[in-house]
């Protein structure tokens, strides 16, 4: 049934394309309005909440604008695949999208690239020595993809890890920026991402002022890179403080 022959979404194609070109043209000008009325350097309101799923040892739900992500953490539990002798634990990450996450219905399969990125962003923060010979599974499900998915997943995941009581050096918070011509726009939405000239994403441990993951696409002058990085680092530390307060809240509730 699911594979009914030749079906298409009516909202596809022409009309969306127009929207994008429009967006594109606009973004070339020096000064333009973002569709959600934010200023260039303003992040979307972040809604975070731990303990979304009680089946897991820890979990968190994050909602940044239209982007909705839920992450559960299982373990530490015995490793599925037998490993050779090692005195540190294994961190296993998996990111998947719902079929309805994207405007055009997807396959809802898991996303290898994001899984790998998530792992890279977190492995530096998790104290693997604290659960030798066992595995901690971090599973993320993107309910709705509204732009800046990966940063949200990363932040949400580190929140879930904290909720699961996994030892970490610091929370990992992550923010991305897009660049349009001269402008740098923080925390882009999906349609902004669709026509950006370049993007830069940082995942970091603010308290230690350390970058755990950093990716950059498109063309950047060194000066612009600096500016973008500062912007992200700043936003990351703000986000981290929100995450902290969220954890404190849940801690108070439980006790």
């Amino acid at each position, binding site marked *: 049934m699911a594979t009914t022959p030749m079906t298409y979404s009516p909202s*596809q*194609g*022409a009309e*969306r*394309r127009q929207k*994008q070109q429009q967006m*594109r043209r606009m973004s070339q000008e020096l000064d333009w309005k973002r569709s959600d009325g934010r200023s260039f350097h303003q992040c979307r309101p972040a809604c975070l909440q731990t303990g979304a799923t009680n089946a897991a040892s820890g979990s968190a739900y994050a909602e940044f604008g239209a982007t909705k992500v839920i992450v559960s953490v299982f373990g530490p539990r015995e490793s599925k695949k037998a490993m050779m002798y090692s005195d540190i634990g294994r961190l296993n990450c998996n990111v998947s999208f719902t079929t309805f996450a994207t405007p055009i219905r997807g396959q809802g399969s898991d996303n*290898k*690239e994001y899984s*790998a990125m998530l792992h*890279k962003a977190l*492995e*530096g*923060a998790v104290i693997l020595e604290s659960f030798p010979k066992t595995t901690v599974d971090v599973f993320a499900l993107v309910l709705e993809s509204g732009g800046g998915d990966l940063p949200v997943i990363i932040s949400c995941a580190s929140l879930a890890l904290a909720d699961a009581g996994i030892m970490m050096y610091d929370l990992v918070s992550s923010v991305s920026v897009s*660049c349009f011509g001269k402008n740098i726009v923080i925390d882009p939405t999906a349609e902004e*991402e*669709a*026509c*950006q*000239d*370049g*993007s*830069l994403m940082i995942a*970091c*441990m603010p308290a*230690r*002022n*350390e*970058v*755990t*993951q*950093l*990716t*950059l*696409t*498109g*063309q*950047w*002058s*060194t000066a612009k*890179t*600096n500016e973008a*990085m*500062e912007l992200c*680092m700043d936003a990351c530390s703000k986000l981290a403080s929100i995450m902290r307060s969220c954890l404190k809240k849940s801690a108070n509730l439980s006790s």
Partner: protein
Amino acid sequence: MVGLSEGEKHFIRGGIAQDLRSDGRKRLQFRSISVETGVIPQANGSARVRLGATDVIASIKAELGKPSILRPDKGKVSIFVDCSPTAAPMFEGRGGEELSNDLSVALQRCLLGGTSGAGAGIDLSSLIIVDGKVCWDLYIDGLVISSDGNLLDALAAAIKVALSNTGIPKVSVLGASSDEQPDVDVSDEEFLQFDTSGVPVIVTLTKVGRHYIVDATSEEESQMSSAISVSVNRRGQICGLTKRGGAGLDPSVVLDMISVANSVSQQLITVLDSEIAAAEASEE
């Protein structure tokens, strides 16, 4: 992957700290690089690049396709990397998949620019034949024959060389009818060369202890705390960046590494240019 004893690790770290690596190189010194073009005659362009025991092949194939609805004025480029089990028994079966994926993603990020196509090494609009109807699909395939570290840089170099050696058949549009697919005639004697001046190279800086090195061997890579791969074009602009390894980096260090990568990349580009010239000379 590579198992080293504490003693060896310590020796390697020491060498890097003292700027004298196990094979006598300095921190920012590449292994001797050798380049061979046209290794895959059936492809539109191909190259083989050797860095010490690291040995990769890149091939470019161009096929006629239809541009995506969202980008009617651009051609499509896709990059795939495969790790052949010949390089290491651990790549057998699905063993190489994870690494292959990582490399593919990194290359895409570093060579294809932003979603709008800005900063792409290859000018996608040069691949278009009929707006919204016909374009070239460029398939870039990397194959790792033998691996001794620094695969990403080697692959990127191979791709750059392969592109410079690529000829795209000249296409003339016959039926210029507006609505349905126009039929085109692909010439088999006339070929268009690519403008590859903009294609960046990738320089990976591997951080070991307090210092970082270029062109790490797999033994050195096993000691890395983290690594940053920067792709830089001739004009010294950054066209992409990825980080590997868990350990965090201080932002200032990152910026420092970027600028170092930038300067090293210019040397690499000149080396490649001469190698390309030499290779083409030997081909004729």
